[in-house]
């Protein structure tokens, strides 16, 4: 990947992941190397079963790799074993995750879904609500802060989910098919939003997607096939010329 003069926020080195042993062994990831820099929005693409979601899970610290090294925001969290005992706290502080479907808690309204993450981080209730409303306003859904998830449209719910992912000002934002349930126009809006967030918060955004319509919204695209990183593209969003 092209150097930016900054330290990468996400660095993955020689990462492998297999499931099962012996004849039943499946190599989901094989010797993956990648870096994502602050302010970048990168795409993780590949056919089903290529290992992109497994890679995202390993970076999100919810799946233990088999070998390799993962460094997040300058902190090595995995080197052939987890180096951090409190991965939950690590996720809470450093990683924002956007699901394919918003996965909002159905019993909390929009603002509370966002404030919950701040509450878990230890912020007091009043400050958490204030920040939640600010984020919802930033994502242009502030007017829906009191609405319950079932009362929100798909686009609104996805924005609230993005606000939740941003709540603790994470340096890393991981998104698993965030545009899949949206039409192309809304998908582009969400991707533009992610680009704005990456720029405003100097965060690294990694998006798993199948959606070819949004390729031009990525700075880089990592393509995986059979657990291997096949191609690394620099897209129209930066230079248009593949590396």
């Amino acid at each position, binding site marked *: 990947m092209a150097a930016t003069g900054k330290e990468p926020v996400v660095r993955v080195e020689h990462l492998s992941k297999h499931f099962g042993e012996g004849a039943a062994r499946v190599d989901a990831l094989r010797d993956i190397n990648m870096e994502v820099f602050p302010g970048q929005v990168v795409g993780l693409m590949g056919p089903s079963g290529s290992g992109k979601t497994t890679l995202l899970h390993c970076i999100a610290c919810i799946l233990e790799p088999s070998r390799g090294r993962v460094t997040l925001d300058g902190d090595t969290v995995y080197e052939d074993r987890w180096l951090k005992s409190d991965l*939950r706290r690590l996720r809470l502080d450093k990683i924002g*995750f956007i699901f*394919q479907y918003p*996965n909002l*808690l159905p019993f909390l309204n929009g603002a509370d879904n966002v404030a*919950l993450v701040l*509450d*878990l981080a230890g912020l007091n209730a009043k400050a958490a609500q204030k920040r939640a409303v600010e984020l919802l306003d930033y994502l242009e859904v502030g007017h829906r802060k009191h609405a*319950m998830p079932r009362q929100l449209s798909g686009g609104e719910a996805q924005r609230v989910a993005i606000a939740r992912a941003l709540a603790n000002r994470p340096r890393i934002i991981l998104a698993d098919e965030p545009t899949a349930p949206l039409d192309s126009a809304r998908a582009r809006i969400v991707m533009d939003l992610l680009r704005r967030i990456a720029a405003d918060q100097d965060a690294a955004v990694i998006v798993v997607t199948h959606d070819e319509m949004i390729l031009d919204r990525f700075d880089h695209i990592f393509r995986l096939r059979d657990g291997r990183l096949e191609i690394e593209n620099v897209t129209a969003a930066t230079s248009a010329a593949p590396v």
Partner: protein
Amino acid sequence: MNLAYRDIKYNLLRFVLTNFGLSLLLGIVIMITGVYGGLIDDALRQARAANADLWVVEAGTNGPFAESSRIPGDTRELVSRVYGIERAGAVTYQSVQAELNGRPLRLFLVGFEPGRPGGPSKLIAGREILRSHYEMVVDRSAGLKLGQEVPLGTRGHKFTVVGLMREEVTSSGDPVAYITLRDAQKLQFELAPPAARREKARGGAGETNDQINAVIAKVSPHVRVDEVAAALSRWKHLNALTQAQQETLLSKYVIERARRQQGLIMVLLVVVSAVIIALIVYTLTMDKVRSIATLKFVGAPDRTIVGLIVQQALSMGIFGYFAGLALVLVFKPYFPRRLVLDPESVGIVFFITIGICLAASTLGIRLALKVDPAEALASSG
């Protein structure tokens, strides 16, 4: 942020309906506790109503409640002369079933000597027995009114209700009625006219009906009750029980089987409640698997998730308990036997409920802690 409260608020109707069912179950547990308390209280009231220090009964028996006791009618005079005895009264006890307005009426008849120990202690209406025959003071649970006549005995004598008491029933729930000793002796020992004629034709002299079941004695405060009891027991044909011994007999032995039956029913109900609460908590947790996975994914600690489940289980138990208690209190007057809900036993049921909820929530907690945060992704398709 209290997630349990928010979830309950969001699913309020489901919570209320689930708890309504639970409150009925817990209401039955509370009701059985009340029946159990009533059983013991009624048994003790029966003995305490006599306001006795000593019960003089037939030798070799634990009468008059635990077993039959028959002693001669003049025993009261003998007992009165014993050193330390202040007052004494002869009493008889018997269960009768009369028919009133086509309906059976069960009564526990106490025959007593007016003016002596053993009579009714407190009336809520009417007056005490003044005439020597055919007057009756009865517990209001019999449903009789002042002035009403009740036919009793084989000769169909009609007894007029002159006074009403309350909360004087036997351990089996039959209302207590007081009549004079003479009337009671006639009812208990007098043969029906055909039987009397046959006895006479057989040449039998017929037994005297001057028999009683016990003598109730009040002991002088300056004399120790056990010393007087020992002195009375020296008579070969008599046995003397202190009030404490009589109460132990009633509460421990006379109602032992019923007590054990109700204890078993209560244990079974508690087990059933525990299983039902556990299943409800488990089902509620199953419904929230995706939310729990999301919570874990965004960094919620296990204590937040455990708190969500435990708080909901406790809310359910507390709500169900108080709703059940309210139901029991509302329907208590219509219950066919007296319920005694003393604060101690009601408190014990409350803490048992809390214990059940905590135990039952472990099933849900186990499920929740097993939820993989990755399920938040998997479920998203």
